[in-house]
């Protein structure tokens, strides 16, 4: 548990600037997430609000490898990081959280429903397990385009949580994906808990990879706290999916550093299901910390440069908040718009 720097896979040919981009992306997600509780308490954000702190490697190690917008990304309500990784500007993310007309969903979606189709991001989903049957359809469309309409070998990446593995719709979709052989990368964000329920307390059999294999989808489990491990595995399996057209299942072990959502935002509610010691233990494997140490150890970035990046990122978040706050609410007469296209 105590390694505090990433181990870089031997055959990795990542460039230094890519490493710095990875670091910056993870930090952008972290700093944005750190800003939202205050905005909620100031009643600027409403509804449910789920942060991605600690899980940044899962998007940073994967999404930059995609051919967006032709490849497609789907995820859960814990979706701020996915939007940023797909290239949705922090301004549009923040404006959506504040319910403004300039938000990426025009203020109608909110935190759980970020979306950005022109960038290949088909959105967050408030229903546990919900995106998986949708991914089946998106994957089918990609295969259909490739076979019938002259499209390229594009793939769909679908994120979902450990709790979602107990949803029937996920199993129906897995089986159909296994049957039809569709180009989908399933990423299980195994952050150990579904709200207050640990994996051990919610499954009759905890080997999730076996559950995918039972439906004909191959897979493996990897360390999701190490962004280079994630990136390496992702590159390998994305290539494989493009080549074979067959789905793959990556279980990524990770941890959420804060509560499930704004309703579970203090250590008092945590104590019903986890200890502070456990959280602190995992915090030692913070993906940003690990990559930061690595960059420093290798002399790629020094403290001053890292501080400069942090300052830039903080500035970006502050700008996003200012932009959002200055943006208008959606016009009242848009209430009945968009029910139909």
């Amino acid at each position, binding site marked *: 548990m105590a390694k505090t720097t990433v181990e870089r896979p031997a055959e990795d040919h990542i460039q230094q600037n890519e490493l710095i981009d990875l670091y910056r992306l993870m930090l952008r997600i972290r700093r944005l997430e750190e800003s939202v509780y205050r905005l909620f308490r100031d009643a600027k954000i409403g509804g449910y609000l789920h942060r991605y702190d600690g899980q940044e490697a899962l998007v940073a190690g994967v999404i930059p490898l995609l051919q967006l917008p032709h490849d497609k990304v789907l995820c859960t309500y814990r979706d701020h990081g996915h939007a940023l990784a797909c290239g949705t500007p922090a301004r549009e993310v923040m404006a959506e959280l504040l319910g403004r007309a300039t938000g990426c969903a025009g203020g109608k979606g909110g935190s759980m429903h970020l979306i950005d189709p022109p960038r290949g991001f088909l959105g967050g989903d408030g229903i546990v397990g919900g995106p*998986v049957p949708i991914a089946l359809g998106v994957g089918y469309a990609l295969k259909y385009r490739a076979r019938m309409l002259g499209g390229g070998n594009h793939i769909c990446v679908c994120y979902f949580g450990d709790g979602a593995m107990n949803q029937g719709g996920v199993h129906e979709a897995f089986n159909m994906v296994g049957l039809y052989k569709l180009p989908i990368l399933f990423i299980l964000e195994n952050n150990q808990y579904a709200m207050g329920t640990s994996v051990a307390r919610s499954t009759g059999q905890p080997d999730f990879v076996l559950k995918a294999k039972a439906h004909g989808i191959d897979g493996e489990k990897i360390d999701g706290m190490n962004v280079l491990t994630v990136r390496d595995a992702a590159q390998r399996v994305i290539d494989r999916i493009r080549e074979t057209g067959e789905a793959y299942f990556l279980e990524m072990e990770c941890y959420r550093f804060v509560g499930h959502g704004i309703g579970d935002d203090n250590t008092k509610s945590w104590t019903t299901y986890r200890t502070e010691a456990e959280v602190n233990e995992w915090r030692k494997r913070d993906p940003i910390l690990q990559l930061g140490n690595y960059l420093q150890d290798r002399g790629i970035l020094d403290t001053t440069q890292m501080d400069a990046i942090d300052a830039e990122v903080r500035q970006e978040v502050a700008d996003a908040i200012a932009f959002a706050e200055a943006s208008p609410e959606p016009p009242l007469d848009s209430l009945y718009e968009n029910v139909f296209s």
Partner: protein
Amino acid sequence: MATMRYQQAVRLALTEEMERDPTVFLCGEEIGQYQGTYRVTEGLLDRFGPMRVVDTPISEIGIAGMATGAAMAGLRPVAEFMTWSFALEAMDQLVNHAAKITYMSGGRIQCPVVFRGPAGVGTQLSAQHSQSLESWYAHTPGFKVVMPAFPADAKGLLKTAIRDPNPVVFMEHAGLYGLQGDVPDDPEFLVPFGVAAIRREGTDATLISYSRGVHLCLKAAEALARDGIECEVIDLRTLVPLDIETVLQSVRKTHRAVVVHEEWKNVGFGAELSARIHEHAFYDLDAPVERVAGADVPMPYAKNLERAAIPNDNDVIAAVKRTLS
């Protein structure tokens, strides 16, 4: 113009739209190799191949998600539920995903998907297989809801549904599949949504229905005509959008209205029609709007009980007479 059965008209619409638009594909249980449970999709696998006519496992959530996701990714899927009763399993994908994605995304994404299949009651299929629940879908913003009563409409409305950029709930009536009728050959024959059809003109009462209920109304109207009572019969064709104007115009002329459907009465679509007619034509009405609908019981198996649970033309006749008394 050709004469064909309702079920063939559905197939013709599918065939024409698949010919016309390579993004249209079908998915569902037993629609391909088996040629369709009610033979609606007979021959289509041979004609269009397995990418476009997709046999699925018995996975209604998967089917609904597959169609919704493919629509979000720019195709035009037509998913079949073997019967609409099985759509109960897919309600989350239908309501919380297909119907809402356009709104939740602030219009950033379209979802041009059609869900179709047989609904309806009347062959002793008993409780779990005898419900259509059109009132549920009509209640949910984001769905268009279509229920044709005649072969020509089955064709023209389904073609409109497939071309519509929104999720469409398209309910056929298994009991109408054998109905013969004239159907235009024109591949551009489209029946617009939101335009009711007056199937019979009349002056004494307005009968409003859709799907098989229209045939009940026509039968009742004929019988009443023999007694000198002339009923106007309106076939709504689409429940959402609803052509309330045609209904109100008729009611303002006849001053009496009877709404008819086979589905359960309590909080059924007839309740909405009744409420709206009263709201907009209260002072034109000579009697309260009558409702003729299915009995509020899970459908019994026994033939005599089933018959008693489903409305018939005599029930319509009695209701018309109540509005006249």
